[in-house]
């Protein structure tokens, strides 16, 4: 292995020699630095990016504003929710910008460890439920009532559902009550796990394109609804506490007021970015628009965020107050 060391050593000296020269010559690049206008007391701002496009929209819009208007150094960290919450304690994550309930995480990190705190709603409402592709809702208008589902169970049979209708569940990130729901509503369906969000989306896309029957678990806001406006099936209405016992659930999912979570350290740091996060608020439509730029139009998240920010200066101004 000695033979390897020599070139490596030479490489190191080449590098240091070159950079050393530079030090004498004086670099002209740093002069062109995009120095931010504002005071840079903001410092680093660590935004967790949970892996769905809607979240990306939130993150890059807030991040871009923080960078441009507050001079923060924004670090985007692509993380699943669970891991993101872990990061609050170590200071690796300052904020999660779109939180879907997660009572277990709330309990652990906000109540017990006190490393995180609620920073208010995002203005988005999260809806979880069962959806069918639009062609089905048009062709079978009564399918949107869960009571009529058994009538169509045969239609939803697949190779995976073993003689019953298939209810396609998806993203492993969410707790679903679907197995209990099917049982408690007496439906002749079997829950089949698609395994990931892309799998779920692809399935719905194919179903609408080829007019094949499909019913599955879905949620909004979700950019895909801009592409294919899935229709929600009505389950028995949600009432407070009807989902208290997971085994006996027979009602729809609650609506989530999506909120923002920040680390306690960040909240107490006096960073101007904290204020921005706290004030950040927009609508499902806003989010879907930015998410659509990213997912449908193939824009980079930065560019998508910039486009929306440029188009909505008043909303942005309100966040910076």
């Amino acid at each position, binding site marked *: 292995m000695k033979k390897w060391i020599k070139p490596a050593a030479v*490489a190191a000296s080449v590098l240091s020699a070159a950079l050393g020269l530079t030090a004498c010559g004086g670099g002209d690049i740093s002069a062109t630095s995009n120095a931010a206008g504002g005071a840079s007391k903001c410092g680093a701002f660590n935004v967790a990016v949970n892996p769905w496009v809607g979240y990306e929209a939130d993150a890059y819009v807030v991040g871009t504003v923080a960078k441009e208007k507050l001079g923060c150094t924004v670090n985007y960290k*692509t*993380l699943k929710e*669970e891991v993101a919450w872990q990061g609050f304690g170590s200071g690796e994550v300052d904020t999660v910008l779109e939180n879907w309930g997660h009572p277990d995480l709330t309990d*652990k990190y906000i109540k017990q460890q006190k490393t995180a705190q609620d920073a208010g709603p995002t203005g988005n409402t999260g809806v979880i439920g069962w959806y069918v592709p639009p062609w089905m809702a048009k062709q079978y208008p009564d399918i949107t009532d869960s009571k009529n589902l058994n009538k169509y169970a045969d239609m939803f049979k697949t190779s995976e559902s073993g003689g019953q209708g298939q209810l396609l569940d998806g993203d492993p990130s969410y707790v679903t009550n679907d197995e209990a729901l099917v049982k408690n509503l007496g439906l002749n369906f079997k829950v089949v*796990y698609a395994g990931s969000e892309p799998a779920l989306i692809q399935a719905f*896309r194919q179903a609408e394109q080829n007019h094949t029957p499909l019913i599955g678990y879905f949620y909004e806001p979700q950019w895909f609804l801009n592409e294919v406006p899935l229709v929600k099936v009505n389950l028995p209405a949600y009432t407070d506490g009807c989902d208290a016992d997971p085994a006996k659930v027979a009602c729809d999912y609650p609506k989530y007021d999506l909120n923002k979570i920040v680390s306690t350290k960040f909240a107490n740091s006096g960073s101007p970015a904290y204020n921005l996060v706290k004030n950040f608020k927009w609508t499902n439509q806003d989010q879907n628009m930015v998410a659509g730029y990213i997912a449908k139009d193939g824009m980079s998240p930065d560019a998508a965020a910039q486009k929306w920010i440029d188009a909505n200066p008043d909303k942005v101004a309100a966040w910076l107050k």
Partner: protein
Amino acid sequence: MSATAVRERPTGPAARPPATTRASRPRISVRRHWRPFLLGAVVVLWLVLWAVLKGTQTLELGGAEKTDFHLWLNSVRDSFDAARSNSAVFEYVVQPLTDGLNGLVAFLQSLFSQPSALRPVPQVGWLGVVVLLAWLAFALAGVRSMLLVGACVLLFGFFGYWQQSIDTLVVTFVAVGLCAILGPPLGIWMARSRRVSAIISPVLDLMQTLPSFAYLAPLALVFGIGPAAAIVTTIIYSLPPLVRITEHGIRNVSPTTLEAVTSMGGTAWQTLTKVQLPMARRTIVVGINQCTMAALSMATIAALINGPGLGQPVLQSLQSLDVGSAFVSGLAIVLMAIMLDRTTTAASERSGIEARVARGTSAGGFRGPRARRVGVIAGAVIAAVAIYLSHNYLALAKFPASPDLGGPLGKAVSAATNWTVGTFSGFTGWLKDTITTLLVNPLESLLAQSPWWVMALVLLGIALALGGRRAAVAAAACEAVILGTGLWNESMKTLATTLVATLLVVVAAVVVGVWMGRSRLADAIIRPVLDAFQTIPSFVYLVPALALFGPTRFTAIVAALAYGVPIATKLVADGIRGVSPTTVEAAESMGTTGWQMVSKVQVPMSRAAVVLAANQGLLYVLSMVVVGGLVGGGGLGYLVVSGFSQGQLFGKGLAAGIAITALGIMLDRITQHAAARLGRA
């Protein structure tokens, strides 16, 4: 040499055929008679019991249900979390380690890839990086490697993933560097002591087979989010091949030479440094090459905990089902694998020649070492100039946005995918339904609907009949572990899809492998495709697979095929090619037809290769269980994924990971013992 993620996974300790003492030899003939009988009896009894007891005592566990073991794993994780802030180990060992790794990566990034606080571009711009890497390739490996590296690195930029590619290089470099520090000593230690080897070897098995999804979250808990945890994850997966190959290399140093050296009174240290290490050097370099490939294959997984690099765009495009972009970033990973593989291989060959040349003996037509030295020095000067220029001029620092190859390529791939899906979805639907009804469903029903104790006994009986007593002992131990995880039913479902996938892998491998083995042209065309499939992150082809087959178990099988078929096919092809030409000639002289040649000569004679292909195919298929879970495979794979995604399912996910490992070890031992038996028969 091929660019493969994990080539010929080194086999565990049971790879050795079970030793039979001479005294027991007379009984073997009796055994051969009762083995098929036992197998038949087991199967018949199984079918009867299944028909009668179907659906009872299957140990099914609902989606959100957890056993005490799962809850206990959760609590272990929680106490880990709690200990983080006030434990000495964390404060004085883990934290400095984490900071060190992060610091190192950050330093390298600020040099080569990432803008820093004071500069909008890294210290060394793209021109500097390209010239530096090309020069390194020239100095270590030669002109051809230099051209390859230069072209690949430029392509990274034209694909639009300059920064991510260099990040991946940085992370791979650090991870492999650490492996190179840790691996050889460990391998040497194992080679010198059977006991150490017996203790560490199962740990290596575990490191290689436990799905990384299962320990990703806790690792992020310990080492924080970002490069440090990503590097540790990468090391866990890529260290075992290096350790094993080092052990193998040291062990295989000619015993005569060792004896000669011992007879001259060398100390253990002298023997190691003057004899064993120099003689095992080539093998260790191969180990480092394998380690590098394995490290690259972790690029996507590492991105899940914010590991920098090409994995990020892969995951990001997956979210918006952007097949084209996912493909382009995946292609960058493939190119990087090819580039690193070829360069390290060439470098190891070159250094062998050079060692001789340097010592003054000419080893045949090698172009003058002096001319080369001048070239290397001139290259160093050019590199220094390039680095200087790229540090100071923005145009040479920031990779130009055009020509943009990534965008058009991505669009073309998307279009091609759409066309394929549109054209073939009818056929693929039929294929999926047929295989599911004919193979997957019956087998799954048989495995998962039988009472657990029936299945446990059946598996034991099969292990005994196929692999003998030692295989049965291993199977019993693995069954106990699976029962302990509380996921028996899910494990049986996974076993069913795994077996179907393995069967298909073997069929495909034999068909394509025989073709490749018999035709140089076919080999030359197919082999690079196989290499690419082994290196490209599976996330890239999940979306097209989903579009073709929907979220089903069959899609999981297809994903497993995409990963398992290449290695198995290559093994079969090499086996066919390895059939002695004299035998082929002799058979030909007797007027054998092409088909007779295949069926009567070449395939039977490469039986060992086919069995090895089945064993490796099986392990590769199992390593895709988790990916299969992402596309509707269900079973253990889905549980591992959800364990990573949901805090309260962590324990269950880890348990599922352990069950996958147990399944893997059980199947591996059974096939290995069976292969050893077959080989002797």
